[in-house]
C-alpha cells in the first residue's frame, strides 16, 4: 500500500479517543501495512498512529532503529495493537515535534522507561520493556490513540523552576 496522507491538526480525528481492536482481521492487517509504509515515507519518522491516517482504532507502529538517537537501543519494528503501558519509570524532558503539528516543537515530559503490553500484527500477545528514545516514541504514539497531542503535554522549564513559591 502506498504511504497515506498524514492528517494535520485541527482535523477532529486527531482529538478522538480511539476504539480497541476486537480482532485482527484483514482490515487491521491492511491498516498496519499502511502505517508502516507511511512511517517509512516520512523523513526521519520513527512512528505513526492510526488516527494520524484517519483510522480511529488503537493501532500504532514504532521503529527507532534507523534514527541516530534510537539505533543503539531498540526492539526494531513494533506493531502495537491495543497497547497498554503496564509500568513506567523515571521522567525526562525532551523537545518533540509531530508530523500532525508541523513547524512547532516543544518540551515534553515523558517517562524514561516503559513496559508496554500489546498484540503484535499476528495477534500474539507481547510485552516489551523500552527505554530512552524508543520509550519516548512509544508514549508519543500511544498518546495519539487517546486523542492527546504533544501540545497537551508541553511543560516549561522556566515555569517549573521559577514559579515555585513554597516548599512547604
Amino acid at each position, binding site marked *: 500500500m502506498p504511504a497515506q496522507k498524514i492528517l494535520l491538526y485541527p482535523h477532529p480525528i486527531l482529538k478522538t479517543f480511539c476504539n480497541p481492536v476486537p480482532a485482527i482481521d484483514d482490515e487491521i492487517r491492511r491498516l498496519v501495512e499502511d502505517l508502516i509504509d507511511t512511517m517509512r515515507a516520512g523523513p526521519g*519518522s*520513527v512512528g505513526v498512529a492510526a488516527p494520524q491516517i484517519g483510522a480511529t482504532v488503537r493501532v500504532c507502529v514504532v521503529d527507532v532503529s534507523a534514527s541516530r538517537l534510537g539505533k543503539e537501543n531498540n526492539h526494531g519494528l513494533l506493531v502495537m495493537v491495543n497497547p497498554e503501558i503496564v509500568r513506567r519509570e523515571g521522567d525526562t524532558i525532551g523537545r518533540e*515535534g509531530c508530523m500532525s503539528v508541523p513547524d512547532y516543537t516543544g518540551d515534553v515530559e515523558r517517562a524514561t522507561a516503559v513496559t508496554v503490553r500489546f498484540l503484535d500484527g499476528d495477534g500474539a500477545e507481547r510485552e516489551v520493556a523500552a527505554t530512552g528514545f524508543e520509550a*519516548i*516514541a512509544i508514549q508519543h504514539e500511544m498518546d495519539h490513540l487517546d486523542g492527546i497531542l504533544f501540545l497537551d503535554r508541553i511543560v516549561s522549564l*522556566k515555569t517549573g*523552576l*521559577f514559579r515555585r513559591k513554597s516548599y512547604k
Partner: protein
Amino acid sequence: MTRKDSLAHFAVTVVGKDRPGIVAGATGVLYRLGCNIEDSSSTMLGGEFSMILIVSHEKPFTKGRLLEEFRGLCDELGLTVSVRPLTRDEAQYRAPEGELCMVSVYGSDQPGIVFRVAQEFARRSINITDLNTKLIGTKEEPVYVMMLEASLPDGATVEEVAALLDEIKKELNVEISVRSITPVSL
C-alpha cells in the same frame, strides 16, 4: 500581491508595574485596531509586567498612529509602550538551522555572568535564541540562574560548547551544564 505580502508589521513592547488588566488592555487596543498578534512573549520581570508582540495589520499605517491608540491605556495603567515597524522579512520567523543546545548556568550572584557567556558565544558565532535569568536562593545567599538556548553554527558540537564553557565555569566559579535539545520528530 497576496494578502500576506501587503501586511504591515510592528514589534510592540509594553512594560509597566504589574497589575490585573495589562494584557486585556494592550490586546484590546490591538484588537480594536484590527491587528493580528503573530507572535508574543509576556512575563513578569521583577515587579514589572512586560510584553513583546509581533503584530500585523492588513493596511499599512504609521508607528505614530499605533502609539496614539495606546496613549489612553498608557495613562490609565502607567505603561511604557514602544513600537518598531518591521519589514515583512524581519517579521518572518526563521527556525534556527544548527544543532540546538540548552545551557544552564548557576552560582553565587555576581556581575558579568551573562556577559561572559554571551561574549564567548558571539566570538564563535553561536546564536542565542532564548535567554532567561532569575535570582533565586535566599536574601543572604542569592543564587543567580541563567538558562539559555543557542543554535550552533555548522560543524560545532555540544561537546565543544561544554569545553568552551568549562573555562568560564572556573573563572566565575559557577556551575554550567550543556545539553542537546535538538527536537525529535515523532
